């Protein structure tokens, strides 16, 4: 994105700075509002004071310590260090607010003195009394120390692991649903669709339009999801009939199809950005939910529903492929296109059916992803690499491979954060992909063949 002349870059940076400032102001006023709800009205102005007062004085780290009932805690001592050097110390005031100015952007360690926490308050996570903070240029960085019932560490370690597994199953279920189309389209046409991620985003955006746009139809999300799948199928139909089908009939090679799909993905992604905007937005339904425990897993109810519906959908797809006439034909075409054509199967119709089904499922995956996270214009592109990992791990070209690979990749990505920082989790999944290509390129369920 930096590939632009210098003055353009400046403008962009300025715009980003403006956005950042806007976000800061917004969050400050938001904080003020919740505070006013909780307490007397006049606290609102005092909380914003540190932001506006310190704005010209470059960088600082600040925060506010409040107990579980959102009452400020006074007299908590905090220290900011960089390496071995202490940069500054602060004690929270009557509003629980503290602030330490720092000399320059960089990484600092903020430590809360747990002994100074009064009223028997304790850190929710006792292992995180020290937090690494990255401060950007001219940033007043906020740090949160959650106060509340501490989780006893032994049980917590176990439950954290299971929670990650649970989250992984959810991510994996979404991946499995979304990547069946990618794998099956490859299976029947031999073409890797690099714009498959945009089919996922498309579904999420359609559901967003129907359920959460102000002034839109505002129908319930489950109904909007069905519509999203329908529209997904329509897009799949249009792409096969209008673009990829004709190209295939022209005997365009794999390479040119892939490059075309790259261009298509780029086009769609940026059109989405223009229409939907840059900001991630949640659906209006099911945004914040309390975790519930089922077995060892504590997840929000929406995640359990997503997992449940995904499993039903996956079984449905399996039955369709295994039992129905068209499903059998799909597998036959994926297995050997010429042989299938010779035995009287209308290959073009089957390919069209695969595109419609695959795009519909991708749209469903997009809605799921939007529900459990948020809707953003490039969510599908972010998922695309994970979907590649999933279908290659499972075996490129088979629907069941996408299911198995999706679940495995989902669990691997989430559980990897038990050991590594979560910002590296995509890297962990892609490392699995590279490893699979090295060791077993045909994947778990694929058939070994000479592929080069």
């Amino acid at each position, binding site marked *: *994105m*930096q*590939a*632009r*002349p*210098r003055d*353009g870059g400046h403008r*962009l940076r300025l*715009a980003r700075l403006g956005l950042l400032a806007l976000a800061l102001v917004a969050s400050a006023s938001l904080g003020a509002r919740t505070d006013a709800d909780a307490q007397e009205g006049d606290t609102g102005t005092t909380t914003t004071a540190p932001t506006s007062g310190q704005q010209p004085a470059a960088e600082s780290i600040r925060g506010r310590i409040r107990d579980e009932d959102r009452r400020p805690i006074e007299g908590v001592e905090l220290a900011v260090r960089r390496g071995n050097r202490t940069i500054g110390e602060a004690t929270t005031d009557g509003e629980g607010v503290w602030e330490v100015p720092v000399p320059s*952007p*960089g*990484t600092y360690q903020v430590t809360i003195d747990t002994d100074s926490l009064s009223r028997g308050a304790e850190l929710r996570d006792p292992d995180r009394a020290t937090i*690494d903070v*990255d401060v*950007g240029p001219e940033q007043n960085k906020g740090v949160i120390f959650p106060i509340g019932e501490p989780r006893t560490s032994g049980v917590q370690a176990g439950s954290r692991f299971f929670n990650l597994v649970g989250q992984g199953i959810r991510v994996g279920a979404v991946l499995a649903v979304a990547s069946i189309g990618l794998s099956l389209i*490859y299976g029947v046409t031999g073409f*890797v669709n*690099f714009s498959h991620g945009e089919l996922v985003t498309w579904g999420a955006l359609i559901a967003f339009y129907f359920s959460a746009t102000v002034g839109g139809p505002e129908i319930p999300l489950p109904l909007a999801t069905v519509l999203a799948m329908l529209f997904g199928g329509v897009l799949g139909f249009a792409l096969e009939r209008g673009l990829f089908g004709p*190209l295939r009939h022209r*005997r*365009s*090679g*794999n*390479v*040119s*199809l*892939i*490059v*075309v799909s*790259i*261009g*298509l*993905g*780029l*086009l*769609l*992604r*940026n*059109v989405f*950005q*223009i229409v939907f905007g840059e900001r991630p937005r949640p659906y209006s339904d099911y945004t914040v939910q309390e975790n519930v425990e089922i077995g060892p897993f504590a997840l929000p109810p929406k995640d359990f529903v997503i997992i449940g519906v995904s499993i039903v959908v996956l079984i449905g797809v399996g039955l369709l492929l295994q039992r129905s006439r068209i499903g059998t034909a799909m597998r036959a075409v994926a297995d050997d296109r010429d042989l299938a054509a010779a035995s009287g199967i209308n290959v073009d119709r089957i390919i069209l059916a695969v595109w419609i089904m695959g795009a519909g499922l991708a749209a469903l995956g997009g809605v799921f992803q939007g529900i459990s996270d948020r809707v953003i214009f490039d969510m599908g592109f972010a998922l695309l*690499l994970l979907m*590649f*990992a999933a279908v*290659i791990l499972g075996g*490129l070209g088979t629907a069941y491979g996408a299911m198995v690979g999706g679940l495995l990749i989902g669990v691997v990505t989430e559980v990897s954060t038990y050991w590594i*920082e979560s*910002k*590296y989790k*995509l*890297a962990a999944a*892609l*490392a699995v*992909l*590279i490893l699979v*290509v*090295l060791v077993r*390129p045909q994947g778990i369920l694929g058939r070994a063949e000479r*592929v*080069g």
Partner: protein
Amino acid sequence: MDIVGVLADAMRTAVGPIAAAYAIAGIGLNLQFGYTGLLNFGHVAFMLVGAYGTAITVDDGGPLWLGILVGMGAAILLGLLFGLPTLRLRADYLAIVTIAAAEVLRIVVRGGGESSFTHGVFGIQRFANSFFDANPIPGGDYGIGRLSFTQRGLWVLAVGWSVVALTAVLVALIARSPWGRILRAIREDEDAARSLGKNTFVVKLQSLVVGGAIASLAGTLLAIDRQDVRPDTYLPIVTFAIYTMVILGGPATRLGPILGAIVYWFILQFTDSFLREAIDAGWIPTSIISADDIAPVRFALVGLGLMLLMIFRPQGMFGRREEVLIDGR
């Protein structure tokens, strides 16, 4: 609307240092994609290691020339890393693995804190002072009106286009050598090349590595021009943009990537300046396209252009249709 100014903007970008850097990267990609038929979608990673190799070396006290070599060496290693697992497999695997590996690399570089040697999101700045100290061009501005460069810009530009010329000559020599003929044979029919006793795996690997080393120079040039490296400069879209340039100019031609880069940046900057002026002048209501939308509009056009080129004119402006990979593998 200042149409002359818009054209001057576009012209300045089209011959500017960024276009030169992209032309170098395109020359590297042309060797891999145009001549050999390799679908390398992680090209930006070669630029990343070139840029970071230079920046880190100088940041740790090394001289600039050593940094450039370190960047090149890292690109050669990266090429081996990309190629060894994938080049025995179908073209799709190389495409997927390279795009994935390039993202892994960016995430890892980005993930380090300020104290790590890549400085994480903060990046590294002001490492090319020795390059600008060596500037022999006397001070002042050169050019007419908006189409002018500072003394500093002209220096980067001169060096940049010299490197473009050198790498273009190198690739042209490669292409007419016996080794270059094997590359084309692999593109046309790898099985035939193999049955003639050529070790196509090794030749493909060499092509990937040489193309990558050339691209590392592009990364270095971009980094020197900005005096700044940051991980988020090296997004997958850079690779896609370079593909657009190479196909626009004409794959497997000597001058294709260079002319492609010039035309690409001319069109891109023209669109950018034109839209800005049109929005300022009130020709386009901001309800349809606001100033914030200009970047996505540009990239949407790149996507559309890439699609249409590949469908209707895969040989680009100057290529020959027989030389182009219409029927892949």
